[in-house]
């Protein structure tokens, strides 16, 4: 009998949200996580319960039922599905490592498919805005040290990124800003969120009114007069005061969330937000940073961009990368019924995608690689259990502000369960064999 001893891992990088805090202290005994210090509610629940509710064996659909099978059989079956497909979709990628993304794109090249990550349903419009205007951004430490005006727009980090405010913004301690009273915090949202309750000022706006309000603000910053009394539910005087606060701060920042990207106007909202911040830099120092959600959605964009030139929605069916959001995006490919097979990695499109997209997904063979059962696993043709990045396996991930850090293994994975990288490499090797054989 082996006696398990307790091990303490300091400075563990949390693989939950885009904040990727790297100060968790995790105590483990064998495969069991005993305690997590410095974690937020999200990381506590992730780390303490990581073993609950897992996929534990590869499954393959036989006679209409998902049945247990060998790892090799699942690899073979997956490779056949992908290699024989005309136009497969490879989707997910934001809750796994950069290394897995690197293999994923090579696989997409070999099978001639579309590879898209979860950006497509969250900050896709942000990237479209960046293509149009640019981006005026910085690493989170810049906010810690310098920001005296912090604006959250359509974002609720108290729930989505629980330690964001404490570690990186209003409540952090920096070189030139020592405490909360050295900073002004403003929240702009459609309802008084828990984040708004922490703010010095909360500005409620009417739903879908972001574009108009942002335009009015841009006018006010430029010194133009506002003709209307109320814009998007906000009095003109409030807008002018806000513009003045933005101009007169020493270092300001806007953090924005899906309240901006997924409401009416979408990338136009981002366009005008980026333009506003660009204009502000003629008057003072101002940055704008999107609140990226998944712990490695940033990495999915970065890897995709350095390999293909484009950050998401990359179509490789012609043999070279093609990018046309609205056409090559996962939801559109599915809604049109174009793809004839799908690989889903560390994501759950069935529960997140529009129903028309899901309707097509259930009709085609789907291969799912996921540590946990999801709404997508029961409709799959093949299911691979996999190791959890940041707990059972390591790998590089990219924080919401573009800083790459390397996660490490802290507990052993359940026996026989492979990492995303290993599974994808095995599928790729098999696909290469099939394709080379055909040639």
């Amino acid at each position, binding site marked *: 009998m082996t006696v398990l001893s307790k091990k303490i891992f300091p400075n563990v990088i949390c693989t939950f949200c885009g904040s990727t805090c790297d100060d968790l202290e995790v105590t483990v005994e064998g495969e069991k996580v005993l305690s997590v210090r410095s974690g937020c509610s999200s990381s506590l629940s992730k780390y303490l319960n990581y073993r609950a509710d897992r996929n534990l064996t590869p499954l393959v659909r036989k006679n209409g039922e998902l049945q247990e099978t060998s790892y090799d059989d699942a690899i073979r079956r997956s490779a056949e599905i992908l290699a024989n497909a005309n136009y497969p979709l490879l989707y997910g990628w934001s809750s796994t490592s950069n290394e897995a993304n690197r293999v994923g794109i090579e696989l997409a090249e070999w099978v001639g498919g579309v590879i898209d990550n979860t950006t497509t349903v969250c900050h896709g419009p942000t990237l479209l805005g960046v293509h149009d205007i640019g981006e005026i951004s910085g690493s*989170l430490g810049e906010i810690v*040290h310098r920001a005296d005006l912090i604006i959250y727009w359509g974002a609720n980090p108290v729930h989505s990124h629980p330690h964001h405010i404490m570690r990186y913004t209003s409540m952090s301690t920096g070189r030139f800003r020592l405490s909360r009273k050295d900073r002004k915090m403003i929240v702009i949202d459609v309802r008084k969120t828990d984040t708004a309750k922490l703010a010095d000022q909360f500005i409620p706006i009417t739903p879908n009114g972001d574009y108009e309000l942002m335009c009015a603000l841009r006018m006010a910053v430029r010194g133009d007069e506002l003709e209307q009394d109320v814009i998007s539910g906000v009095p003109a005087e409030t807008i002018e005061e806000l513009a003045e606060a933005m101009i007169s701060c020493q270092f300001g920042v806007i953090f924005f969330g899906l309240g901006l990207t997924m409401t009416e106007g979408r990338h136009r909202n981002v366009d005008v937000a980026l333009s506003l911040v660009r204009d502000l830099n003629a008057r003072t120092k101002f940055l704008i940073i999107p609140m990226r959600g998944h712990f490695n959605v940033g990495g999915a964009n970065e890897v995709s*961009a350095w390999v293909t030139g484009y950050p998401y929605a990359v179509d490789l069916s012609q043999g070279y990368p093609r990018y046309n959001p609205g056409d090559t995006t996962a939801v559109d490919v599915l809604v049109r019924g174009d793809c004839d097979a799908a690989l889903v990695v560390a994501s759950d499109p069935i529960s997140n995608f529009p129903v028309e997209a899901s309707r097509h997904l259930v009709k085609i063979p789907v291969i799912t690689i996921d540590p946990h059962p999801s709404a997508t696993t029961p409709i799959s043709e093949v299911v691979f259990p996999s190791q959890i990045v940041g707990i059972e396996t390591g790998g590089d991930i990219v924080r919401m502000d573009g*800083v*790459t850090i*390397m996660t490490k293994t802290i507990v052993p994975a359940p026996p026989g369960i492979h990492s995303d990288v290993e599974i994808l490499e095995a599928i790729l090797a098999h696909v290469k064999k099939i394709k080379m054989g055909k040639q």
Partner: protein
Amino acid sequence: MSELLVRNGFVYDPQNGIEGEKADISISNGKIVESVGTGAVVIDASGMIIMPGGVDIHSHIAGSKVNAGRILRPEDHVKDVERHTAITRAGTGHSIPSTFTTGYRYAKLGYTTVFEPATPLLKTRHTHEELDDTPIVDKGCFPLFGNDWHTMEYLRQGRVEECAAYIAWMLRATKGYAIKIVNPGGVEAWRWGRYLVGLEDKVPNFDITPREIVRGICKVNQLLHLPHTIHVHTNDLAKIGNYQTTIDTMDSVRGLGGDNRPLIHITHVQFTGRTGSAWHNVGSGAPEIADYVNKHDHVTVDMGQVVFMNTTTMTADGGFQYMLYQLSGNKWFNFDVEVETGAGIVPYTYRRTNYVNAIQWGIGLELALLIKDPWRVYMTTDHPNGGDFTKYPKIISWLMSRKAREKSLARINSTARNKLDLPDLDREYSFSEIAVVTRAGTAKALGLKQKGHLGVGADADVAVYDINPTKIDPSRDFRLLRRALRKAAFTIKDGRIVVKNGEIVETPIGRTYWVDSTVSESLKSKVEADMRKTFTKYYTINMDNYAMADSELANSHRINVKAEV
């Protein structure tokens, strides 16, 4: 083991004094050897030129800034695509090619080593991920110092030795090769939205001047015995009249070295070589700068040549990029990196009919033609800032052919043409001199003893170009020259044929060079203890999560040196 014999070509190996003599190059186990056995694979290079593989000293090919440029500009990629094949990966160009495409395109030009010259310390893990995905070529990167709080604080307090130990730690942590300095002090000012002017302005909150930073880091560089000099992008980049800042920066380190070794490399001098007092009278400061370089041994420079095209400008000098955004109205990317540095990107079109652009084009070429010793001026475009690296053959033709220059001069802005000295310069580079400015000189400046030449023991990195120097006069037949240089007949990397007739045939993973300079144990532990305290206060990342392990690189190649401290 695998042996190769490259037969009967005209060899240009300036480091070994070989200037176009017919000779055979023998290769065994990835190295140049005296001779090979009869079983060697023979490459017939009759009527062709043989040179060492190209060594690029300054080309932005990888890292968060380059990738931000890719994300910023889908319109740059759409018309320039590379297909996936059984051997090669898919990819896109144009001015900011994807990583695999970058490796292939360099190899096709006969280049086998490339250095990424600006990587933020905090984000260098990303740079190495991209370098790992850049096939064929050997590579390395220069981490950014000179706006980082640790360096400025150590130097302000006169603690040069501790600064050296800190920089050694950082180079080890980031797997960096040399010290890059961009707009010393000026980027910290820009992180407040402010600017410094010249070398004597104080950095806000840090009570230190750019001059003190450059001198201090130059001393550190020598204490650490790093293979390359400090690699400097000066203050006042792109400002009118900035040639004086360039000369002042060169002169600020004069006398800091004991012997005649170079002390400072000033990069992309074209961007910092302007005379004048306003946009309408901008002129070339190349004659003044060249005069200084000709009279002082402690300086090397690279051109940063402009090519007339649409490209993507990118630098750690965020303030400069904001000015370029204001001038051009094009889209603007800015990224400030906590504690350390910044970055900016602006797409830009160099137009031959634009007065200032035409002057810029002239400055680069004047520099290369007026600096007498080719071992101290290197050919770059500061890729992609002056244009992308695939335009090198065009630049070589301008250097080798007065006729090629005249062709271009006839088409540029006439006011600029009248103002430049370029029309009067009749110097034409020889093939040997081209070999110096594109490989031998750069390898020497980088301290890569096994590169840039074809002597016994050198890495078997070889380029073969289908051009016969006894039949083709590059001065007259510059178009043939360009064509031959664009697609190497053969590129050999570590003894393996990677390019044949301009096409990729094999894609090995090149090395990543980095420098480990060991300082004394006592100094090391003292500085590490200091850093543990400051790190928690300065960074949003723990010190232990910051440093990279050797095993994180796909093909790590550590160069050990012993520091003086």
